[in-house]
């Protein structure tokens, strides 16, 4: 079970969290103005990297907040977590 550092509550067991898919996928400000291809990119296309990956989690059985998390998909090592709106740390 992963130990995930919630930016508000500190390290907590994985079963309190819910995964939210890849982070920093920007919803178009005006979806009506984008092409079908651009919309499909937003909707379905994800990077799915082997290695370091920025993803969203929600501390759903804790403080209820969404946040971002950089995790290595090979080792499951969590590099960092940060609040929404903050930019991805290097």
């Amino acid at each position, binding site marked *: *079970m*992963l*130990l995930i550092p919630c930016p*508000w*509550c*500190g390290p*907590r*067991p*994985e*079963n*309190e969290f*819910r995964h*939210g898919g890849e982070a920093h996928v920007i*919803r*178009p400000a*005006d*979806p*009506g103005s*984008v092409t*079908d291809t651009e*919309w499909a990119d937003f*909707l379905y296309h994800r990077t799915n990297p082997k290695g370091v990956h920025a993803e*969203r989690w*929600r501390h*759903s*059985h*804790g*403080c*209820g*907040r*969404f946040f971002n998390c950089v995790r290595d998909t090979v*080792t*499951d090592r969590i590099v960092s977590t940060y609040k*929404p*709106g903050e930019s991805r740390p290097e």
Partner: protein
Amino acid sequence: MTQPFRTPSGGRIRRDQPIRFTFDGRPYDGHAGDTLASALLANGVHLVGRSFKYHRPRGILCAGSEEPNALVTIDKGDGRVTPNLRATTVALYQGLTARSQNAWPSIRFDLGAIAGFLAPLLAAGFYYKTFMWPAAFWRRLYEPAIRAAAGLGWAPASPDPDRYLHRYAHCDVLVIGAGPAGLAAAAAAAARGDRVILCDEQAEPGGSLLARPDMRIDGRPVLDWIAAAGMGVTVLPRTTAFGWYPGNMVCLAERVTDHLARPNPNLPRERLWLVRASRVVIATGAIERPSVFPGNDRPGIMLVGAAATYLHRYGVLPGRRIVVATSHDSAWFTAFALAAAGATIAAILDQRDAVDPALREQARAAGIPVHSGARITGTGGRRRVRFVRTDKTPGRIRCDTVLMSDGWTPSVQLFSQSRGILRFDPASGTFLPGQSAARERSAGACNGTFDLAACLAEGHGAGGGDPRTFDVTSEPKFGAPVPPRPGQPHGKAFVDFQNDVTTKDLAIATSEGFRAIEHVKRYTTAGMATDQGKTGNLNTLAAVAALTGRSIPEIGLTTFRPPYTPVTFGTFAGAARGDLFDPIRRTPIDDQDAVFEDVGTWQRARYFPRPGETMRQAVARECRAVRNDLGLFDASTLGKIEVVGPDSAEFLNRMYTGDFARLEPGRCKYGLLLGEDGFIRDDGVIARLAPDRFHVTTTTGGAAGVLHHMEDYLQTEFPSLRVWLTSTTEQWAVIALQGPRAAAALAPLLDDIDLATMPHMSVREGRFAGVPARLCRVSFTGEPGFEINLPATFARSAWDLLRETGATRYGTETMHVLRAEKGFVIVGQETDGTVIPDDLGLNRTIARGKADFVGKRSLARPDMGREDRKQLVGLLTADPAVVLEEGAQLTTTGTVSLGHVTSAYHSATLGRSIALALLSGGRSRIGTTLRVPLPEGVVAVTVTDPVFYDRTGDRMTGALILSDGRPARAQGVTGDITPHQPPCPARPCAEVELAMAPATGKFSVRTREQLAPVLRAVTRDSHTVLWLGPDEYLVTGDEPPRIAADSIVDVSHRTVAFRVHGPRAGWCLNAFCALDLDDLPGNGCTRTLFGKAEIVLWRRGDAEFHIETARSFAPYVWALLEEARREFLPPSAAC
């Protein structure tokens, strides 16, 4: 003395405590402190099992959990039968009953041994080659025959009567293995003030030290040193660390009662420890390697180190006349010890040409013949080894026991599981821990360190101690590193005893082109099954290396996976069995006159049969009652979300398809919720209570998902909107009153709501029989009706009160029929995740002119406009008596599916069957005939509009009948509602007390102002404020808090509170809660999980906890707490 091989003194057994046990029906004597294996050996029993494939007689090879041969079935009676236990790890208890396995009719005469004569046919991969033709035999002959022959012990046939528990634990240092290195590590960590857990699979700590009772460490007798090392440490004996998981979580299986003859029934049989450790010290030791020579598997052949253990720890001689075959020094010391204890050492065969002259001299003094440069080339003896042959004179040596050793294999399984990278050590020819991936250190023999003083120093350092040396009295070496040898590829020279894999099998595999070790493993089965190749893997590698002309590191290891040793299913399941598998959620009404059905985790009333009624009769009666008179329905499971804030309408506009900005306060609107992909996710009625407050309902199953979906957009896409969401599903119970008489029956019970002012789809707040209520005029039946939202505590009384109006209770089945007659869809039944609003004819719910809402852009994709999309239609069977099956396919020709039936019922109202379906291009097919194949034959159906009843909707939207002419209160309605609480009687227990906490006002408060520190509870005025999130607080107190907040929602009835206190309160919580409670000091509070239930946990003191849990989860949480504290009850306390 009936134990002829027991030495007169010595060992750790308790000679004053004799134990009687039986093996294969025959009684034997042993002592407390024995294992089954040591007791059998004390009685001279070596033949204990038959091998997997060839049914060869097998004895006891090892003294620990790596044993591949001596697998037995233990029968404790009452269905407590456990197969495939290693006799070497089964503690002896009074009356123990053990049986051998894989032999018929008996272990001495086993007909299965005929397989030995067929051996040439049964070589590696034989079943891939042999059972190919004819194909007709696969199912009827080959598979049943192979299944019958496969496996060793028999799985028990009756349900497991024992209890199992989990426990989450946290520590600074977890030490795995309580041998010298592990003990030194634990002592060093404890001395630093760390929280230390030390586990060991044996019954007591000490490991290899227990076989050296006379030695001294730092001047102290070794047993005193062991006891001192465990001070201040949580020591878990009989506990195997079997799996390593991310985040330094190590799973341990603790065998709590297996060693007890008559355990307290309130104890769990086994406990799964889920230990989260900041650091782990792996001190798992090393496993001795067998030598690979023809006939190396006969009973009486065992590992040298095992013989040393049996002699020193159990006072048992493995035999009278012993041959020792070795390639390193440590075996010599065991030979000397056995000779000193009275055994005859027939010979020491050392594969090395050069042997330490001092050893030779000591052997000569003891009268032991020595042959260097010698190895065993064969053995003889039917049920026990009688002689060995060597490649040196005298050629044939008579004996009753052979001790063999080809060196030691460090136990690197857990290190490898932690994703550390192993490195090959050319000096020892073994794999050792290399680069770490987790926060762990290996110490001692598992790290390739065999010298005792060095092991202690390494363990001390791994535990965090400053470098130091240990003073140990001179002792025989544990074992020098010796590279593994390929073994002899002729005869039956076994590399894997449990799977009967010989060097010949490996030769066949490599000659057939299997070069990768993982392929060789799968083809030959070497390294599989319960022992996972603990004794055999390195010999397999060495053999394959020799056969393919490569080096061992070139070949590499097979993957180590959990579990290290077999773990029972019960241990993994823990308490999550039967009624505790999932929460069983019941509504506050829970009318037991109903037949219930599972809806998610809820129990919902399906129908209310009268005596003698079938379900169809009951549903027909209930349907007629609603259509013609009055029905009463428990809709409490509907999800409810209170949406509060100045931007609420804007937020709902972005989430739902409809226009909620123009919805007037006091009115309701149907809401359709889409995913961003345009597909329908959920639906429900949304009531506007005030300009900045909405009461949103969701489907029963969708409640949690909808809230999560809304929070996702609110927090990450629209964070500037000033909106706050609060789940009120369990705050409000919902009673639907539906039918022509609804208004007339309801009106007298309302204190301050005038139904005459309530059009269809309207809402009023007021009082129902004196209780605050939210009353919606809505209908899911097509009749005029209301949904009365009441604080959950009052719901049952209100239900009983409403029954006095003469209303007929109806359940979900009737609700389904009524809504299907009206063509109303159910999300999840008419939708399947690929359905858009237009498919259901619900485009009218999409507000025109809204620039954006979630899913809108996807609806503009070309695919969403295709004319052949599946659309909702009605179906009428040609034969009105035939009810279609839900899921049945729709066709024109019988070959191509055009869609499927989503709902099908008998409609009492219409006097015939009806069905709803999703049909390709459905609306254009109305009036046509289709074929529906059913198991009974093909049924013809006509495609129709999906609304079967009251197409105009006048019945539900028309004017209400406010009086039925009956005098209001004369019906016995008193308007008196009393609170209803879930009964939870507590049993006293000194260690952990459980109690219901008194009811109080509770308010969900959302504000940016810091009302309490993070993860803390504080008292403000007459309120207690619990921090739950960065802008979320739970405030308790009799009155609503008078503070300026963004959102305050009364949730007084949403949760039930328990008080858990006593010295073991924290222990009990950690049976189901994964939090480190040391992180939660006094007045700490947080939301978390307890089993599968969400709770708010508030630590009110060292030994006192307060738990808030949603009402429907309360019985589950209570039952889990009872389960957790049961082990502290005396045996007499019934449960």
